[in-house]
């Protein structure tokens, strides 16, 4: 599903590569934690998959497509198959829960009938039934993140990328978030989650890829956050 082959990324005006000859394979339906300290290259990894950045060398295949050969014109179609969740939620403050989720479908031109059908389903899936008409500032951080996950998942992407989704959320609420991610993963969606949260990684017992200074230092199935911590 995601295939990186010897990928190196150096940002302009920087000597040290953000990713240094990284090769990873993620299969369909897998759940992968991407761990490592700040600046280890986790976010770069995710941005490369979205083709927000281009690698300096190496090959990236996502959902069967060679990103180097994907024209700018087709990037939006790639992104429709990838959902994204961030630490800072990125909700539209002037739209309610329903509208925030529906927005993701409106802007890719889905018919209104379809939107009216699937949005309530997804809102329920993330555990926000009954709160569809709340505004983001009336929700807790955990609830806002659920809205973001609903928006990322509403178009049934093949891949869900989560960049520290529990970074702004207390540990108790994080467990709920992880349950939603797990539920999404069980529908067959590949999930890649970058995180610092050792407790979550340890409790989930999923595959762990550890980055350090842009290199992969560990790739374990059913791993924990790290012996050193």
């Amino acid at each position, binding site marked *: 599903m995601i295939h990186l082959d010897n990928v190196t990324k150096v940002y302009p005006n920087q000597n040290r590569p953000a990713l240094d000859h990284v090769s990873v394979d993620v299969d369909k339906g897998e759940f992968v934690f991407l761990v490592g300290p700040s600046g280890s290259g986790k976010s770069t990894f995710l941005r490369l998959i*979205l083709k927000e950045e281009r690698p300096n060398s190496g090959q990236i295949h996502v959902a069967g497509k060679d990103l180097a050969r994907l024209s*700018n*014109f087709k990037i939006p179609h790639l*992104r429709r198959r990838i959902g994204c969740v961030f630490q800072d939620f990125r909700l539209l403050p002037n739209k309610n829960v329903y509208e925030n989720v529906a927005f993701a479908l409106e*802007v890719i031109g889905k018919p209104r009938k379809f939107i009216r059908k699937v949005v309530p389903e997804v809102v329920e899936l993330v555990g926000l039934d009954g709160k569809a008409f709340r505004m983001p500032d009336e929700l807790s951080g955990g609830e806002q993140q659920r809205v973001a996950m609903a928006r990322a998942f509403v*178009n049934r992407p093949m891949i869900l990328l989560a960049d520290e989704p529990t970074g702004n959320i207390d540990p108790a609420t994080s467990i709920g978030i992880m349950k939603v991610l797990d539920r999404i993963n069980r529908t067959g969606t590949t999930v890649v989650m970058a995180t610092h949260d050792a407790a979550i990684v340890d409790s989930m017992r999923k595959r762990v890829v550890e980055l350090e200074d842009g290199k992969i230092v560990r790739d374990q199935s059913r791993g924990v956050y790290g012996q050193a911590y």
Partner: protein
Amino acid sequence: MRANFIFSEVWIGLRRNLTMTIAVIVTVAIGMAMFGVGLMINTQVSAMKGFWDDKVSISVYLCSKNSAFENCRESGAITQAQKDEIRNELQSLPQVAGIEYEDQKQAFEKFKNEQAGNILATVTKAEDLPESFRVRLKDSSQYAAVVGLVKGRPGVANVINQKDILERFYGLLETFLWISVVLASVLVFAAILLIANTMRLAAYNRRRETGIMRLVGASNLYIQMPFLLEGMIAGLIGGLISASMLIMAKVFVFDRVHDYIALTARLTWADVIQVVVVALVAGVIICAVAAFMTLRRYLRV
């Protein structure tokens, strides 16, 4: 494409950016009006040229007994032999289409009609007015041979080429034409800068929305369309205002001038409609292109 979604976005964008949008509209309106006035002057000048070209003639005024012209003082009044000679020589020129002779009586009648009611008409006598030849040319630009033949000749008081008078008038109109073209270019330049700024503000105002749109895979066209339409609507409104200004220019300036001095070729409504359409289309296209160029900088893929 969901049209109502895009239009609601456009409406929100126009409202949020109202001051900048008004600035764009005003600049485009005045710029396009100047541009249109330039086109109208151009049409007017070529219409007048077409109208006058086969009507202008060269007047060759002949010396009478008490002509004040320097040329006449030495030679005195023209003799019949000189008159015949001039007529024959003029007639033999290939550029000449025809010659009319006007004697003092005819000149006096004409003068009385033109100056009716004027005190000058009551004190002027037929002998005060000169006899003249009216030389019509096949091509009004080929006047040099005629003027060269008669000018300064004994018995010829003065030569007036009507074309010279018209040329001076065309020259004046052409000056106005260039002024309006220069003003129009300056305003179009200002409009482009204003649109660039408006788009930058609009892109900044809506960076959350566009960021999410990018993320969920909205196409570039879909993301840019509201901005483009905003620019085009501002251009269209500006163009419509310029259209009304141009119609007013036709009614209150061109037609008035026509009434005062008989320009003889009136600017028709068909000409005005053509100019208005050009101004409208140019306004929209300039705004769309300027918006598109700016968006490529501020809304990257």
